[in-house]
């Protein structure tokens, strides 16, 4: 869509000018009466030299869906196909599009674009995570920590009726509410300052929430072993109830509360 590009280079950043690409991109359908909003998006490519930068994109909000993900898809389709980000379900269920929008972690598909067109929306990847490209971060450490708590049912005795489900009362099932809904988007863990400073040793709010989910499950018989496995100065007790996790969770869960539940059980 070369016809829609603004050819002049805005000379605020000399290294950008040296690369001879337009640093401000505008939608080709910019017409009179359009409500233009500027998005500043974090860009970094391993192959091209240079440091990461915030690139400006201008979009007509009247021509775009209400969520930040709609804006990102529109930018990728019409303006800059090299913009890279993860996305899948577009309805807040998969957790792929987790990123930092205007300073707060959240899912791009659930965050509404602030309609005030004079304000600039800044989109950056999840904080304190290694960046693979643009908005895509390396989640391996996060997934390994989830794996380390052994998030599956473990039993010592076989089921009362072999081959059939292990029964659970409604009251016991209600104990899992607030934990089973976690989609592993990593918004909470990457918003925790304690996790920023100790990502390898501290498990983080998401993994600990899932640890509590299995500890509280009445069908699981390895409760004592699970509690002992995480009863560690670094794995559990790096949590200082900062509670940024509860603020960041796009599903409205409270990992801090679940962590304090584990700490109580440890006594």
């Amino acid at each position: 869509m070369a016809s829609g590009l603004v050819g002049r280079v805005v000379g605020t950043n000399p290294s950008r000018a040296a690369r001879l690409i337009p640093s401000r991109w505008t939608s080709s359908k910019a017409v009179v009466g359009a409500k233009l909003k500027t998005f500043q998006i974090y860009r970094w490519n391993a192959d091209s030299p240079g440091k990461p930068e915030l690139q400006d994109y201008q979009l007509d909000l009247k021509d775009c869906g209400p969520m930040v993900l709609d804006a990102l898809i529109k930018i990728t389709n019409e303006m800059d196909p090299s913009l890279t980000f993860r996305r899948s379900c577009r309805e807040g269920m998969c957790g792929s599009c987790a990123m930092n929008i205007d300073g707060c972690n959240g899912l791009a598909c659930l965050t509404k674009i602030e309609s005030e067109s004079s304000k600039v929306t800044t989109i950056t990847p999840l904080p304190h995570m290694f960046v693979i490209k643009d908005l895509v971060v390396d989640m391996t450490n996060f997934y390994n920590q989830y794996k380390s708590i052994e998030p599956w049912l473990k039993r010592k005795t076989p089921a009362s009726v072999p081959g059939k489900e292990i029964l659970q009362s409604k009251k016991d099932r209600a104990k899992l509410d607030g934990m089973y809904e976690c989609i592993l988007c990593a918004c909470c863990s990457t918003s925790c300052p304690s996790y920023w400073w100790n990502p390898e040793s501290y498990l983080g709010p998401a993994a600990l929430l899932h640890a509590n989910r299995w500890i509280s499950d009445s069908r699981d018989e390895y409760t004592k072993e699970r509690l002992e496995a995480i009863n560690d100065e670094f794995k559990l007790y790096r949590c200082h109830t900062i509670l940024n996790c509860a603020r960041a969770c796009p599903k409205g869960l409270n990992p801090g509360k679940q962590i304090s539940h584990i700490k109580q059980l440890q006594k």
Partner: protein
Amino acid sequence: MGATKLSGMQKQVLSLYRGFLRAARSKPTTEDRKRIQTIVSTEFRKNSKEVDRKNFQYIEYLLRLGHKQLDQLKSPDMVSISSVKIN
């Protein structure tokens, strides 16, 4: 002999290279071992010439990528690696 002391990052790169060569030795056929060794050594030598010594961000990115590939290669199911040159 390398008289100057190696920096921490240089040591990491060398230990990753050693790791790749050790993984190559554990593969069944000699042909596979040679192939892995040539691919890995050309990649490392090419990067050592092309990448600026001070470009820590890119070097760390390549180290992380290399460690992930090494973990994949170490598994006994992996037999060999191959590379394709596109001009």
